[in-house]
């Protein structure tokens, strides 16, 4: 691990990863900062995800399986993989960088306190969810999330987001994205169980792990291995796909933008 990397944002990222290692029982009900008390979910667990970017092949199997499993509207995503092109400044060599994104199920989720009706809340197992019975679709949470991880579901007219496939975890199954991860990059697990794969990987790779936008103090619980710290903040990059043209060169727009 090079010094440069460690001395920069890596510090913050490492701190965030560290949170997962401290006993969480006290935090779970007390709430941190302005967070309302956590409710529902299994208080003995704290779910998190680790994504080994070296093993992400950018195939988008997670994107599609999640979309199907969770009946997301067309054109809206609970998870997806962004693909970037990077250049070696010295040699000019180019490479691709795959960045899977989803809700970070933050330890300090900014989306929760802004909800005027307490529809969005954090469960005791750390999963941030939306109670659609309460949600009025005001989208405060959508705007509060610095990770663009939420959207308004046009069918239900409520806030929609990744739940780590809580319905599957509760059935003893794996989230769709984890189950279908072709490269084996996505690892989910209970970070309070020191023997879980994720706990062991956090212990093993601790200081190499990074999270997105640590400076926002959201304390994300999705950890990235093999991360380039410049992707920790939203990279300034030129979009590759600007438009959709038909065979005559006529602009058609995005087919699913109306949803």
């Amino acid at each position, binding site marked *: 691990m090079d010094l440069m990397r460690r001395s920069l944002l890596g510090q913050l990222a490492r701190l965030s990863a560290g949170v997962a290692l401290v006993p969480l029982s006290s935090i779970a009900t007390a709430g941190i900062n302005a967070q309302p008390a956590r409710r529902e979910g299994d208080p003995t667990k704290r779910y998190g995800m680790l994504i080994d970017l070296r093993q992400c092949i950018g195939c988008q199997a997670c994107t599609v399986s999640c979309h199907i499993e969770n009946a997301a509207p067309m054109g809206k995503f609970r998870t997806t993989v962004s693909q970037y092109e990077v250049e070696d400044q010295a040699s000019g060599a180019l490479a691709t960088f795959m960045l899977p994104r989803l809700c970070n199920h933050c330890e300090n989720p900014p989306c929760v306190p802004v909800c005027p009706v307490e529809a969005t809340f954090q469960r005791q197992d750390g999963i941030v969810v939306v109670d659609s019975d309460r949600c009025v679709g005001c989208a405060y949470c959508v705007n509060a999330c610095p990770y663009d991880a939420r959207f308004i579901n046009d069918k*239900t007219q409520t806030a929609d987001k990744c739940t780590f496939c809580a319905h599957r975890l509760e059935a003893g199954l*794996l989230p769709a994205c984890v189950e279908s*991860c072709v490269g084996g990059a996505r690892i989910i697990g209970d970070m309070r169980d020191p023997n879980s794969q994720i706990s062991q990987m956090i212990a093993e790779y601790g200081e190499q792990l990074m999270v997105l936008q640590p400076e926002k103090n959201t304390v994300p619980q999705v950890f990235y291995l093999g991360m380039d710290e410049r992707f920790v903040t939203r990279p300034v990059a030129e979009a590759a796909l600007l438009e959709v043209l038909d065979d005559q060169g006529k602009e058609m727009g995005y087919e699913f933008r109306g949803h």
Partner: protein
Amino acid sequence: MDKSRRRLLKGAVAAGGAATFAAGYSDPLIKLAKGVTGSAGEKPKDRIHGNSLAPEYSVDLKTGELTLNPDQRVAFTICYGCTTQCGVRVRIDNTTEKVLRVSGNPYHPLSADEHLPMKTPVVEALRGLSAYAEQGQQNRSTACARGNAMMSQLDNPFRIDHCLKRVAGRGERKWEKISFEQLIEEICEGGDLFGEGHVDGLRTIHNHDELIDPENPEYGPKANQLMVMEATDYGRSDLLKRFTLNAFATRNYGHHGSYCGLAFRMGSGAVMNNLVSNAHVKPDIKNAEFIMYIGTAPSQAGNPFKLQGRLIAKARAQGTLEYVIVDPALNAAASHAADNNHWVPIRPGSDSAFAMAIIQWLLDNQGYAKDFLELPGKKAADAKDEVSHSNATHLVITTKVHPRESFFLRASDLGLAEAGSDADVPLVVDAAGKLVSSESVLAAELFVEREVELVGGETVLVKSSMTLLRESANEYDLATYAEHCGIPQEKIIELAAKFASHGRRAVVNCHGGMMSGNGFYSAFGVQMLNLLAANYNRKGGSSVGGGIFNGAGKGPRYNLADFPGKRGPKGVFLSRSRFPYQKSSEYKRKVAAGENPYPSRAPWRPIAPPTLTEHLPSALDGYPYPIKALIGCMANPIYGQAGLEATIADKLKDPKRLGLFVAVDGFINETNRFADYIVPDSVMYEVWGFTGAWKGALGKLTTACWPVVEPRQQKTAEGEPVSMDAFFIAVAKRLGLKGFGENAIPDADGNLHPLNRAEDYYLRMAANIAFLGKPLPSASEDDLAHSGIVRLQPEVEKTLKEEERGPVNFLYARGGRFEDATDHYKGEQLKNAWTKTLCVYSETIGTSIDTMNGEFNSGVPRHSHPLLANKQPMREVFTEQEWPLLAFSFKSNLMNSYAIGNERLRMIKPYNPVQMNIKDAQRFGIKHGDTISIESPGGEVVGLALVSESVMPGSLGIEHGYGHRDLGATPHIIDGESQPDMPWMRAGLNINDLGFRDPTRNVDGTWLEPISGSAIRQGLPVRVTRLGTS
């Protein structure tokens, strides 16, 4: 400094996700401004889980006890998402019979990390996918994005579920629905079917008593005027070939190979001494140390997609492998998240320059496996504990115009053995300089050039294979090779040295990138590197894989290879392949008339397999002969073969050139748009069949496909779903062909069984597979309950003998039969080995004659610029001044050639912008995001310029899978009703629209690779113009 620090962000590429992840903003912001409160939406099923699917089963995390969800079932079958043909687990709603979601079959080597042993009870396999003890993420079995999305094919709005007959001119997209029985009658009996005059039916065409052309009797019987083509073997080719080759017995069956990767396959076959089935290998990624991927890339392209992607991902994380991606475009395989890989840009279609440069360096620097290559024969290999040997030391007669020119010098040439006998082995030179039998010494000289006196007293010049290879590699110097391929000389040397330094754990792999003007020799040269490294059959080297459990042969239960009255096809293929032109009547007539028999009217390719690339254009031009009927099964050459539409579309529309065209397909694609009749086929998870793997898997495997859901299309009068199987069975029965109907399938005791329904064939094939070698045990009741095969039981009981049912159920319950992964290695060797003599010099190719100039083809790989059919350099006819860029295509890691109808794939990647290098963009005044016109000698398309440095200067990259005109891209009218108009299905462009008719041919044809007849799509000459800014 860490590599990542030095890298500059360049741009977001590809995944629409990057843009659309944030798409949730716009509406809510408006709502916020308006102060709307309360949700007006549809109430989801669950307040927390929304409309997420109910789990298929649940597992107690403490005990592991598994409880099935009675409303759903899980069944294992095949994915049709691409040609990898992975085994998948399909989750089905028992009430609606809808497929809910698809993932991988844990028993399947192409889908699972470590596939489960067959003996594993199904319930345990399902438990292993769960979170219980975190098993499911320690050993996953996955489906890729396509595999996940493809289920929408089942209820795709463009699916054809009824027999159709055209009601307007061919290709005009107007149809009426007819009954299956009417369709069969019209196709078999013919008549004035379209008010355009008489059409011969299949009964008339099925004529084995008369010749097509008495002037050219070698063309064979009139029955050859039926041509059958299919996309590829999705598990039903055995039945299709039973009809085509052995019941109807026409010579003309073709598949997509020649516009897919045939140049690669033949190049591989040349090294592996198998130009019959064109054997090929894949790297043992797990154990390799250095791999050069040339014109293929794991996780971007290549086959098997998931398996290679998964293995490369692991190797990257574990740091066991260094690899390079030699390709005109940057792709997903070159990963910034790990340091042990990088991209090397190469000019399209110049791979032979790169390969020959590496060969030259290896030969000049002793960078080859000397000890292995010196093994002259099997005896030496056995003594050295090697499973194979090569012909590197064998001697080729090079004296011109000698009857034995280009053949190996054999014992019989010196009168030491009878020609053609077992003792007639190749001769080599031993360490003492003596000519000896290749089976008599443990080592022989690699580089030989000398005169030899033959038995008749004449003297000939012989050169060893290695000498010929060296001469060929030295045809150009490194600097010239570097200039031709665009890779700096230092880089070539660096790669060659690295390749050599890893010995037998250095591997190369190539595929679709070889579909270029010199594609065969490019692939031959690339694969030669594997031989020079002696990595065949080696752990960490090149693996031929395990092959299949073949149920279609003379099996232990049923003989599916033979049947009473079986015929064999006779005559010349439409593609004039695998037949020596010198034996044709045309040749003989020319010689008799004192004319130069060369060039032939159009290429005859003595070594190439029957190629669909030549079949259609040749048939429509009537050379060697015209056809009267065409049946296509899912085949789409018009979309897939560069330049074909422009070359043949008008002729295809002409009923005088082709009387009858029947398409069997669940969809109307660009090719079967021109059909007269469409037979609705089963789709995806509704089909029967058995498939294997395209190498890459080290063990033996056969995937079982069966209708895990009921086919949704029209039924026959007997109540069977109309399908490919039902169609051929019905035609065969109506024409009274043998091998179908009653008494068609002999069992092992010689009793005959019927073939009236698809099950009659496939269930018996299943019995064969289940009983091969050590028979499979019987499935337990529990297996049946957990694998969704309860619904299969009535068919199993109706069709199979009692003792066959248990093992057949065991097979279907696991989605096939798979060799256990216990150990694929024996020391440093792979257990499944390729034992034929590996070829530095291919005698088969070296003794074949190019019919366009009458010269021998080179038996060793060589570099050449791409040529047209008359041997004129392509760049002489289509100059760089006029056509400054070379277009190439690459496989999409998302979209497949027939997947455009999947909305979830369009949702992620709706379009394929054209990749252009910034230097070229500046040259032509084009900016990132400009709309451009791309013109070639064969056509013009419009695209959006994606300007970057991620593509080789001078080339233009086009991702394959877009630019459709059918499959939903243009509505068809059926019974007066129009299909929906979905403009987004037409988005993007197809490189094959830039292909062209070879102007130097006398019989129409697209630009084809000379040896293999492969369609050329890598390195098409084009020019670009800016149309506007978007």
